[in-house]
Structures are given as structure tokens and as C-alpha cells.
């Protein structure tokens, strides 16, 4: 499966809030807090367990001044980092 077809799903073990356009994410089992920049926060906000990386990248392209291929690269990189932290899972079918 292509990377851009994968669907991120937020982990149950997170708590988060958007404050002044920055997402504050508490990783509950690790007792860690992550604060995202504006673009990453928007990606986090629109993760709904349905949209795949391609769709997220298109949404970011529409909202920010970034080309589609760069958006895919950035979205995928961000999501892989978040998956490593345990904040999301990246699945082919959006199931945890």
C-alpha cells in the first residue's frame, strides 16, 4: 500500500486542546506534553480516522501556501513522528 493511502487515527491515550491555533497534546501513558506549530496543529485537528494522508495533504495545500507534493512529504513525516510517540496509529484502513 502506498504511504499516502494510510489513515491516521488518534490514540485513546491522548488528551488535546487547540489553544491559539496551537495544539497541546498530552500523551497520557507517557506523561509527556507535545505542542505543535500551526500547520501541524491543523493536521492534528482534521485527523478524523477517515481521511488518509493524501486527503490531509490536499486540505493543507488548500489552506496553506505549500505545494501538494511538499505537503504530502510534510504530513507523512509529521504523522510518522506522531506514530512513534504513540499519539496516533497509521493504518491502511483507519482501525486501531
Amino acid at each position, binding site marked *: 500500500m502506498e504511504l499516502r493511502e494510510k489513515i491516521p487515527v488518534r490514540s*485513546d*491515550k491522548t*488528551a488535546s*486542546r*487547540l*489553544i491559539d491555533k496551537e495544539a*497541546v497534546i*498530552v500523551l*497520557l501513558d507517557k506523561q509527556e506534553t507535545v505542542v505543535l506549530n500551526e500547520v501541524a496543529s491543523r493536521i492534528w485537528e482534521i485527523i478524523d480516522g477517515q481521511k488518509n494522508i493524501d486527503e490531509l495533504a490536499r486540505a493543507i495545500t488548500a489552506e496553506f501556501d505549500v505545494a501538494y507534493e511538499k505537503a504530502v512529504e510534510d504530513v507523512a513525516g509529521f504523522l510518522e513522528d506522531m506514530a512513534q510517540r504513540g499519539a496516533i496509529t497509521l493504518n491502511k484502513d483507519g482501525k486501531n
Partner: protein
Amino acid sequence: MNNYICLLAHWDLTYKCNLRCRHCYAQGEKSREEVSYVKAKSIIDELKEMGCLYLVFSGGEILLRADFFDIASYARKQGFALRLLTNGTLIDETTSKRIASLYPLTVEMSIYAADKSLHDTITSVIGSFDRTIDAVALLKKRNLRVILKFLVMQDNVKEFRAVKSLAENLGVDFLFDFCVVTSDSGSDTPLKYRLNRVQLKDFFISNGIPLLEREAQEEALLCSAGLNNIFITPYLDVYPCIGIKYKIGNLWETSLRELWHSAKLNFIREIQTSDLYKCAQCEVRQFCSRCLGIAMIEDGDMFGPSSFDCAVAAVKKEVLEPKKEMVADEK
């Protein structure tokens, strides 16, 4: 409108309790009704809208609420991080599993002694120690972060090291406090359990308690009450914090958003050091952790000195200054 965000709400969900701790400040009012599940959900929604991220659920004993897990689960679904304060005595295998499903940041329980009969005397319930310790084990098994909290009082101060060791042996975090406070009913009966100056000094020295001396900055005399947090009672009275009995309003009558931006809460936020007519010039202010609430309740004036905090600061100075002189001599 101010720019302060209410990041944390400390919410006492009930004042019903199955223990009768002698020093307890929490007092229920029989004539008042505690918050319903439906109303709790609407307040949780409003807290979420306001940007609140952390909820501290306490009491009383939260697990005495039949709808506690309904409230807590709803809060989790709305993306809150939870801290749970409980006496632990009602936690069995099933309850520990339900607690684990909430992924709480912490589960915090009080232990008053490593000597179980002393602990049970303080809680006035025989068997409470064993049940709390059993709860610790159950929660640890589920990889939850447990904190044991020790309130230092006259009759358990000698248990400090033993309780600290107990926490270490159980593999949990340990916190302590020596600030026994008056009852919510206004009674100062709990204060008889507070350490006096001599006992406090001995407690600091004999246990090697690390003490902080801040820069003598005037801002250090002010706390963060009402800046990023709020306190809510089971009757939905709202206060700047659990210690400041200056009521901002009630959530049956006014929205939380209105109370957050109210003149009453701004009054607390806008307190300046210059308003603290004696403390701003005090010679021990760098040792002082002044509490507006204690000054208000015990000395009748939130802008005046808190005799308790004055005593603690004086003791800290007595403990720290000889050490500073020794270091200076060595140099």
C-alpha cells in the same frame, strides 16, 4: 475580556465520603444538591470550549458517586486529561480496570502512616489502610501512575520516612504537605493537628527537607490563582482555587465563561504586591509561600500577613541561614 485561559479545573464532585478523617476540610451541606450527570456534562462542554485541558476530580470520595465513571468517561471523550483524587478504599479489580480505561494522568491517594493502626485512627475507619494499599497494587498492575500523599501532622510526623519508604517499595511517587487547613464549615478544629514552629523546624532538619529561598522579588508573593485554573464544588460554587474562599459565583446561575471573565475573578488576578501592605517589605519574604486563602480565612484579611505563612517563612530562614553561613565560611 481577558486573555487568560482556564487550562485546569479542580472539581470536587461530591462531599460524601466513606472515611471520617479527623483533619478533613471538606464539609457537605445537607440542604444542597450535588451536581447531576446532565449538568456535569454541560459544564464539561463549556470547559472544553474555553480551552480547558486538565480536570482534577476529587471530593469527598469520587467513587461514591454512582455516575462517576459516566462523568469521567464523558470528560475523556471530550479530550480531557484527568487526575483522580481518591482514598482508594473502594477500588477493587473491576474498578481498577474501569479507572485504567480512563488513562488518568495520575491516581492520587492519601496515606497518613505506615503504621496501619495509626492511619486507621486518623481516617476513623478500621481497615482503610489495607484497602488503600491494595488499591495501589491493583492500579500499579495496570501501569497507572499512582501518587501517595502524606499530610504531615502532629501525630504522624514521625511516620514521614516510613511512608516515604513505603511509597518507594510500592514503586509509586510520594508527595507531602504540612499545611493543614481549616474546615470549609469555618471550624478551625483541624488546625490542632498542624505542626507548631518547633515541630516544623525539627521536621525540616531531621528529614533533610530541601527548602527553597527565592530571589527577594515582590512578584513571588503572589500566586497563580484564577490565572489558568479554577475550583468548582459539588454544588457548582466557583472559586479562584480550593484555598481561597472568595466565591466567584455559581454555575446554576451563571455560565462558567461569564464567571471566568467576571469582575470578581479579575479582582483576584489584579492583586499587586503593593496591595500586600506588610508582606511587600517583609524581611523574610524570600522564604515565604504566601497564600491569599490562608491569610483570608485565618487572619481575616487576604491582603494582610498570614500568621501561618509568617511562621513557616521564619522557620525556613532559621534552617537555611546557618547553612549559608557555613558555606560562606568554607569559601
